[in-house]
């Protein structure tokens, strides 16, 4: 890997830790090109300067493609610098969203997003005022429930999207289950539509970083791309014009995300209609300032189940008690 790192460094990029496969190109014994694969995302592509323009990326992508198919990924995505979009366009990728000078997301399935939109159109619900909430629900707390309730009070229909990618304490299936069973207990359940994750609702935790300089850039690139996908492809199908989000005073990333949300969903010039952003103060439990999933995880880690009970809906509590991922959190403490 030292050789790969050196090549990437000469190209001004880094190696993301989640790359599971590298296609390598050698000239004699010297490494002159590489392309990485993480899940269904092509990343960490570099070609030695002297060989640029020789279309070395084409055979590299073929190797990556075969590796991807072996791993069950027939379609690929790439995140890259916008100036490199041209290279990937020639390889069959087309841009989905771009944050100028920072990042572009491309996919290689010409009908990928249309197919997702077609599946969404089966979930269309009629209403005057239609809102949306995007949550990770790791786990699903009273804070999430409050957010949904507030959105439902303000809108006729609320669409809830559960982030799909699995790099959370609870798996996607577990999080989806908690949201579904939590919503099923709410009086507003008939007006709340729960959507499973998709490749077009991006998780910040899996966003590629290799071509970005620092954390603020990563955050700006991620929010810009995720929100453009939402406004450009998802919201128009479902008629969503309002998005609800909780403010999280202790998390800088969430605070910044919420600020950027207003820009990308409302102010940025796009063909898709603007979406009004509603920021809600997080609900406070009896003796806590507010409820957040990270706080609940900290309590779980400490084994303080009785405290957890006051911060999550009964459905989530039942789930957590019956399926405590003790090993995952590495917790000892009281096991009730």
């Amino acid at each position, binding site marked *: 890997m030292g050789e790969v790192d050196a090549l990437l460094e000469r190209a001004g990029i880094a190696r993301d830790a989640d790359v599971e496969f590298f296609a390598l190109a050698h000239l004699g014994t010297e490494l002159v090109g590489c392309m990485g694969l993480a899940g269904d995302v092509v990343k960490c592509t570099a070609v030695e300067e002297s060989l640029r323009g020789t*279309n070395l990326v*084409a*055979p590299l*992508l*073929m190797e990556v*493609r*075969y590796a991807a*198919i072996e791993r*069950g*990924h*027939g*379609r690929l995505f790439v995140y890259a610098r916008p100036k490199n979009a041209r290279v990937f366009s*020639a*390889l*069959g990728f087309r841009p989905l969203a771009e944050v100028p000078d920072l990042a572009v997301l491309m996919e*290689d*399935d*010409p*009908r990928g997003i249309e*197919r997702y939109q077609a599946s969404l159109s089966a979930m269309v619900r009629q209403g005057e005022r239609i809102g949306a909430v995007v949550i990770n629900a790791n786990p699903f707390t009273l804070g999430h429930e409050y957010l949904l309730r507030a959105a439902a009070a303000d809108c006729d229909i609320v669409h809830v999207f559960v982030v799909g990618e699995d790099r959370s304490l609870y798996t996607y299936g577990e999080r989806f289950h908690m949201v579904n069973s939590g919503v099923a207990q709410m009086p507003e359940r008939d007006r709340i539509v729960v959507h499973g994750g998709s490749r077009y609702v991006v998780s910040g935790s899996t966003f590629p970083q290799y071509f970005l300089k620092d954390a603020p850039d990563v955050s700006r690139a991620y929010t810009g791309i995720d929100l453009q996908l939402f406004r450009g492809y998802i919201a128009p199908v479902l008629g969503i014009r309002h998005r609800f989000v909780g403010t999280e005073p202790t998390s800088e990333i969430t605070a910044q995300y919420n600020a950027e949300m207003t820009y990308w969903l409302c102010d940025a010039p796009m063909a898709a209609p603007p979406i009004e952003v509603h920021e809600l103060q997080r609900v406070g439990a009896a003796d806590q300032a507010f409820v957040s999933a990270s706080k609940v995880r900290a309590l779980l880690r400490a084994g303080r189940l009785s405290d957890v009970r006051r911060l999550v809906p009964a459905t989530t509590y039942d789930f957590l008690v019956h399926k405590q991922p003790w090993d995952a959190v590495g917790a000892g403490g009281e096991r009730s």
Partner: protein
Amino acid sequence: MRITHDAVAGTLESGDVLVRVAPDETLGVSVSTSVEAQYGDVVRKVVATTLAEFGVESGSVIVEDKGALDCTLRARVQAAVARGTDEQIDWPALIGRLP
């Protein structure tokens, strides 16, 4: 015939073509070619004919052509379909039907 799993054939080198197939409920074919102006219609026709010869009813077929000859194009489509289906292919009958 149905495409039952992801498969590819070909390359993106000049004079070749990359054909990707994937399972889908309907048959969807998308073709992009570097020789669109001169041969776009021909490329589409060869792809459609080859798929029809196999009797492909469903699947996503993505063709990225870099100026392949018709025979290359046909061979790549055949290889991708053969790799992407679990069904038996009656090669003798198929070859008998070829021009």
